[in-house]
């Protein structure tokens, strides 16, 4: 159990490193993948709603401390909700194939973004434009990375199951 928690902490630190350094190296036309969203969805699907919500809270708070102070709590709430909702589809109870996981991630991405924009009170006239110019391209880029991550981990799990069988 302790190893599992340590592994999650390690994954989170890796995501933070990727998000603050690598993400800016691989950005295309100002669009960066969101490694935090991938991490939260990945953990929530594997470990359930409570753990998903906890890591969502931590990741959201980490995002909030670098944002304007009066936005504090917006990212925290958005990612906590994301972690919890995705965690309800925990893999112990429901089997999701790669395509469905990606759909869950994309929907989760938009839901958390929507909550975030509502909480930071983005003016309603620029909400659609921000969704189209920021959220949509970032969602597509994030989905591309997530596909790779989920594919690699599903292959690893399949191999493990074969060995067990």
């Amino acid at each position, binding site marked *: 159990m302790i190893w599992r928690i340590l592994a999650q902490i390690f994954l989170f630190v890796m995501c933070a*490193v990727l998000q603050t350094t690598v993400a800016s190296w691989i*950005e295309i036309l*100002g669009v960066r993948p969101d490694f935090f969203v991938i991490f939260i969805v990945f953990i929530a699907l594997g470990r359930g709603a409570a753990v998903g919500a906890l890591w969502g809270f931590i990741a959201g708070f980490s995002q909030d401390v670098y*944002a*304007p*102070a*009066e936005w504090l709590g917006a990212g925290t*709430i958005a990612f906590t909700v994301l972690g919890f909702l995705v965690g309800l589809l925990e893999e112990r109870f429901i089997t999701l194939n790669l395509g469905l996981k990606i759909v869950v991630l994309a929907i989760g991405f938009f839901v958390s973004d929507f909550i975030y924009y509502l909480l930071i009170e983005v003016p309603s006239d620029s909400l659609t434009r921000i969704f189209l110019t920021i959220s949509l391209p*970032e969602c597509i880029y994030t989905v591309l990375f997530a596909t790779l991550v989920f594919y690699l981990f599903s292959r690893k799990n399949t191999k493990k199951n074969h060995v067990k069988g």
Partner: protein
Amino acid sequence: MKRIFRAVISVLSWKQGIFFFILLLTLGIVMRSMPLAVQEGIVAGALRTVYFPAQWLVSSVDNYIGLYKENDQLRLENARLRVENDLRRESLAELERLYELVRFDNKWDYPIVTARVVGKNPGRFVTTMVVDRGSNHGVRAEMPVFTVDGLIGKTARVAPFYSQVQLLTDPNLKMSMIATRTRVVGFLESSNGSDLFAMIPTYAEVRVGDTLSSSGLGGVFPKGLGVGVISSVQKGDVDVMQQIKIDPFVNFARIEELFIMLKEPDWNVREMLE
């Protein structure tokens, strides 16, 4: 101890985790609804105790990769310079001239510190960034920050070896600016963390393509630092002001190195800060 640990684990692995979720959500809502001073205290505390030290670790990795690349480049350059010894001297002289050229830009006569970006706001909007210069390098809060292309913001929180730069896209940063052609003064703001807008009196004649720079009013930014170009003009909700969208000279997402002007804020700003 073991029992407490097991209790925590059982809460975390509980089927629905609804109570845990509500607890976290409540914490988030409490943070969201706190007064700004308390929120700033939480952010400053978290940055000082956890995130700046963590940033140091991250930037060490970044530095290591950077040094590795730099080492490769230096080896190549060294080989080239051995062959072209005469050219090397010429290049050095040229480098000195370029260095002087860079220094000439400091027409405001304040010392300048170069800094490297070691962290950016990981959220949707790039509103702040962390640089590797702090109070040990003479940096204080409320100092102008710019690149060769133009103004990008000011220092907000300063630690001994790191500073947080508040960018012009931060909705909390409002500054006075001047249209360079018509000399009319207005103020610059970003209401959504992404786009830059200027509010200028309706009677003032401005048009698309006009450039804007800092006005020198307000006590933080010196006069004449370029900000951007007007991309569209429209009347605001109130008739006395027109809302002007600005294309900044600087691409905030692509800043790697920047300059901090060691200019203490004017007495009126200092008084407010104290």
